[in-house]
């Protein structure tokens, strides 16, 4: 290990300036995140967009990992007969160990360490940090693997870059040729099989690269390594064209996400007095010009009755399944469009009205939307289908309404959800409030079907949230505001959103010249933060053996 460590130190010394520069790029990106979170809000959307673009450029520069890997390998070339280490008592295995250690240290550990203060500052707990670190490492690994492959079979940067160029051209070309071939022979590839082909191809590529790298370090037999690459490419092409089996990978992903959701929403019974009912479903007509075979939206309507007077339901991760009598089934995520009840309760609380007035009905009506494959949509016409919808709920109590000073404030951190009023400005009959918010946004969530925090990060979501309204009690008027502009960016797995909301304090129609009354109304109004707190958390399974579907809804 001492000699391996000796090589590690040598490589770090040799590449200290490029590596420091790269670390600086990573740190600068985080620095931009801090600037975006702490700016005073007067800078405007262009400024935000410019900085967001700059952070994306820096994120792109992180792709220089690819070249840095080549630099690390080129320190001790594996191709040719001129590298001085080849006639020293340094075995290929030891060199490989040293290089892998450095890759792990420089491209995984260092970026995670640099990101750590950023994640902690954004309220990440251990679980979120672990997932963010895994995601960061996974993205780095893509660059590292590709860089490693070309670096071990080339004898310098010129050839390294040339082969990179070949790869950049070859991969889309091969993918395109496979696609063309499949469409030419009218091959019908089921989505599950297509996903399996992609996953098997990726696994083959990773295994092939690992084998080539190890082989080249241990034997330095270039042509055999190139033959191994050729074999791998051949296997990948054959997989793309002919892999027959559905490995149920998408279903396994789905099941994993569901297990995570179940862990955070144990099958607790709903609070007493609540009744749940599915009221029907609609299959939406595809938009004009939509290609045949595209997935179709299925919308299920449901209602929940018996809610306590100051309470509303907030839905989180939801999923559905369809099952036909012949055993064919379909499953996936659902998106819930909530009822207006929660908004009404918030308005009432802001205005100081009593919930006992009965203005807000104790009924929650919502819609669960899901995309289903065209083939499944066609099957809906053929006969009854069993439908299950699992919705995870938070029973939220509208807890408090607090007046907020009309000025920029400090950030409130609620778990990993941060919020700050960055700027407040009166403009005629309007109050402009700029909010800066942040929350975790993992690419893994996206991979798992677009559900935020599916990997369990969100399940631990803070059990409270707030809404802001401009309230003029004298006029019995509360405005939820209209978004003037909003923009988001993602830095180091944290999504930062800037949003300017324009509030009015009277029912006067917006006109070119604001009325004196409307201007006065704004002066009399106060910005109120209404806080909702979770009182119970439960999952409910809506189930029917024969879903009643209305077809061709616009």
């Amino acid at each position, binding site marked *: 290990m001492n000699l391996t460590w000796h090589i590690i130190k*040598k490589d770090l010394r040799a590449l200290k300036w490029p590596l420091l520069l790269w670390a600086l790029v990573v740190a600068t990106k985080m620095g931009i995140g801090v600037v975006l979170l702490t700016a005073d809000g007067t800078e405007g959307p262009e400024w935000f967009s410019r900085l967001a673009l700059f952070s994306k450029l820096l994120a792109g520069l992180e792709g220089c990992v690819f070249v840095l890997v080549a630099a690390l390998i080129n320190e001790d070339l594996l191709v040719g007969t001129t590298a*001085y280490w080849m006639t*020293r*008592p340094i075995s290929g295995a030891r060199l490989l160990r040293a290089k892998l250690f450095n890759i792990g240290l420089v491209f995984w550990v260092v970026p995670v360490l640099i990101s750590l203060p950023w994640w902690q500052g954004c309220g990440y707990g251990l679980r979120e940090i672990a997932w963010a670190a895994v995601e960061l490492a996974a993205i780095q690994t893509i660059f590292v693997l590709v860089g490693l492959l070309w670096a071990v079979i080339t004898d310098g940067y010129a050839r390294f870059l040339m082969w990179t160029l070949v790869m950049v051209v070859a991969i889309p070309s091969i993918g395109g040729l496979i696609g063309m071939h499949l469409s030419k022979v009218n091959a019908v590839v089921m989505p599950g099989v297509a996903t399996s082909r992609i996953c098997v191809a990726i696994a083959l590529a990773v295994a092939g690269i690992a084998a080539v790298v190890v082989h080249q370090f241990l034997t330095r037999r270039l042509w055999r390594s190139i033959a191994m690459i050729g074999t791998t490419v051949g296997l990948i092409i054959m997989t793309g064209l002919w892999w027959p089996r559905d490995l149920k990978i998408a279903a396994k992903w789905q099941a994993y996400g569901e297990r995570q959701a179940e862990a955070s929403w144990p099958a607790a019974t709903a609070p007493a007095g609540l009744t749940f009912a599915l009221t029907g479903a609609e299959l939406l007509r595809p938009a004009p010009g939509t290609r045949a075979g595209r997935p179709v939206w299925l919308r299920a309507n449901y209602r929940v009755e018996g809610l306590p007077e100051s309470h509303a339901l907030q839905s989180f991760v939801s999923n559905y399944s369809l099952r036909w009598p012949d055993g064919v089934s379909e499953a996936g995520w659902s998106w819930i469009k909530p009822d207006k009840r929660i908004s009404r309760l918030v308005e009432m609380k802001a205005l100081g009205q009593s919930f006992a007035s009965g203005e807000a009905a104790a009924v929650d009506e919502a819609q669960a939307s899901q995309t289903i494959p065209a083939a499944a949509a066609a099957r809906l016409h053929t006969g009854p289908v069993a439908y299950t919808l699992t919705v995870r709920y938070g029973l939220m109590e509208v807890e408090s309404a607090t007046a907020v000073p009309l000025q920029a404030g400090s950030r409130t951190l609620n778990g990993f959800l941060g919020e700050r009023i960055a700027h407040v400005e009166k403009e005629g009959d309007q109050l402009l409030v700029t909010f800066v918010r942040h929350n975790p946004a993992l690419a893994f969530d996206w991979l798992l079907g677009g559900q935020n925090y599916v990997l369990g990060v969100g399940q631990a979501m803070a059990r409270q949230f707030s809404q802001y309204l401009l309230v003029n009690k004298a006029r019995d008027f509360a405005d939820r505001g209209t978004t003037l502009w909003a923009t988001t960016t993602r830095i180091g797995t944290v999504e930062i959103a800037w949003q300017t909301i324009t509030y009015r304090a009277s029912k006067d129609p917006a006109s070119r010249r604001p009325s004196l009354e409307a201007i006065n109304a704004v002066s009399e109004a106060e910005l109120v933060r209404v806080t909702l707190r979770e009182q119970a958390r439960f999952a409910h399974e809506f189930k029917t053996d024969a879903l009643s579907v209305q077809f061709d809804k616009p």
Partner: protein
Amino acid sequence: MSIIETANLSHRYWRTEAVRDLSFAVPTGNVCALLGANGAGKTTTLKVLMNLLRPTSGSARVLGVDSTRLGDREFQQIGYVSENQKQPLWMTVRQLLDYCRPFYPTWDSALEAKLLAQFDLPPDRKLKHLSRGMLMKAALLSSLSYRPKLLVLDEPFSGLDPLARDDLVRGILEASELGDWTVLVSSHDIEEVERLADNIAMLENGRLRFSETTESLLGRFRRMEVTVSGPVQFGAPPAGWLELEQKGGLIRFIATNYTTPATERACREYFAEGAVVVHPMTLREIFVTLSRETRTQPKGAAA
């Protein structure tokens, strides 16, 4: 006992056979020079011996181990310096030595200090800022300081000025006197080789022309001058006479198997009468003679 042995060693680059059926041995403790014109196969041979290339056929053994299986243990006893080797140019001389030192259990710091002073190398200068001669000396220093049993030098004098060559040769000579070291040096810089080598092996078009001690080689080559009174009708010259020519009354040729009584007897038989003068030859002259002869022969006949 031989520290290097090859048996029918061949190496082929695509269609070009760089080394063909090479069988030779380097005795332990000797300084052996591998001579040959450009493209003769010297560098390829050394690269095969150092496991930088694999033999296409045949085999080579170095320190008793098959060349394709040379590992850490063997390389701890081998020093290799080549004009083509890419050194870590970002390092200073001291950093190079510091980097190499831990890999060699036999590293002799006193010898390192002595050679550093002798080679007059600036320890804190980066290798990329060294002259070519100094770079070679730095490479040699990093390969001598652990007292290797076998030192392999591939064209170490190429492109060096006379002073740098002299420093290098003296360094190698002194090093070889420090212990029972074996040196295998490939070069076409004949003067330096002549000062160094106990044994000479000559390669031609990838084949071994001869391998013998320097003393024996210098002993068997003579430039002969015969003064005759009249024209001489040449018949087929005896075997081993090269470059036979006549200018007026002076006949010159080179005897490649010279022994005093036998060569003089052959002269008397061939020229009948005439005064014979015998001149010793330098290694350079021998090399040029043999190379010229190879060039005039049809391909493959040199063997």
